[in-house]
């Protein structure tokens, strides 16, 4: 599948109808999602024929992208039942098989070595302080090969240090810097649209 085609398909997905600000529910746009998964597969072979987990899957954008790139099996995890309903509809719409699990990912211990790759667009910690640093260790414990994650560019040094020193990372690399354009989603948003610099990270567990 070509990048443009993937981006097009992801653009048709349903997103949050009533986003919950305390969960930092923001859709992962098709531009970022397609590039993230395309890079993971084309540069590293981490998606096709692999078992992929999507942490904080929301409406399932990254999960669907992984499935469209022929992951052998995709599992999406999220705490919010409404998002999971939307994610289920999205998977049906695009005729892909995805298993969804409702849980608090920071309190879920997954057994074994079945998951090859974790992909995620975790909370940035703007509502609940430290939220960005809860998803990463959870992902590092589960992935046997690689973790792909988005974090604010402003946290780059902090993330690198934490990953290598505390979260069992053998390597922590910023693959590229992207602009995450957030439309006005919540009442407290003053500007019509805002652009946040985010890093696409690739971590390898030891």
């Amino acid at each position, binding site marked *: 599948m070509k990048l443009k085609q993937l981006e097009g398909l992801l653009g048709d997905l349903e997103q949050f109808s009533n986003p919950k600000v305390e969960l930092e529910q923001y859709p992962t746009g098709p531009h970022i999602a397609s590039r993230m998964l395309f890079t993971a597969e084309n540069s590293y072979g981490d998606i096709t024929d692999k078992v992929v987990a999507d942490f904080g899957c929301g409406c399932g954008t990254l999960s669907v992208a992984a499935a469209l790139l022929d992951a*052998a099996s995709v599992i999406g995890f999220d705490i919010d039942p409404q998002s999971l309903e939307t994610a289920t509809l999205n998977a049906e719409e695009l005729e892909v098989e995805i298993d969804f699990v409702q849980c608090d990912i920071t*309190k879920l211990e997954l057994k074994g070595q*079945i998951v090859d790759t974790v992909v995620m667009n975790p909370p940035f910690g703007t509502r609940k302080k430290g939220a960005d640093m809860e998803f990463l260790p959870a992902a590092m414990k589960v992935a046997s090969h690689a973790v792909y994650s988005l974090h604010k560019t402003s946290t780059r040094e902090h993330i690198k240090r934490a990953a290598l020193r505390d979260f069992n990372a053998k390597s922590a690399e910023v693959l590229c810097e992207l602009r995450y354009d957030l439309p006005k989603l919540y009442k407290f948003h003053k500007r019509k649209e805002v652009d946040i610099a985010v890093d696409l990270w690739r971590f390898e567990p030891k």
Partner: protein
Amino acid sequence: MRLITHNMLSCNIKGVTNGFPLRIEAGNVIKKEVDFNPDFIRHMFAKLEWKALVEGARSMGYAELPEDSPDAAVLESDESFLKKLHHALLELHLEEGALVCPETGRKFPVNKGIPNMLLHEDEV
């Protein structure tokens, strides 16, 4: 929920040491065919908790898997075994039912294929 997912889920209630595997109470199971990828199935074999898979499959109405984990040599010679493993792992969907903690008996409900593993406040 398919058995590939079930194979990694356990009960995380505070203090529980034997939360795996979760027993399956099958309410509604459906079958959906997906393409058979023998290399992927061979690759998965070594990573699976075999007993959990066999018991889970049986609970979902599929009893074709051998009780004991077969020799790895079988993976090369026996395609029908690979197909059975493929079927159990990827084609059986638990739509309604529950996953039950083997130690505490706590039920995690499964609705529309989605298990709810959220813990109550006193379980964390």
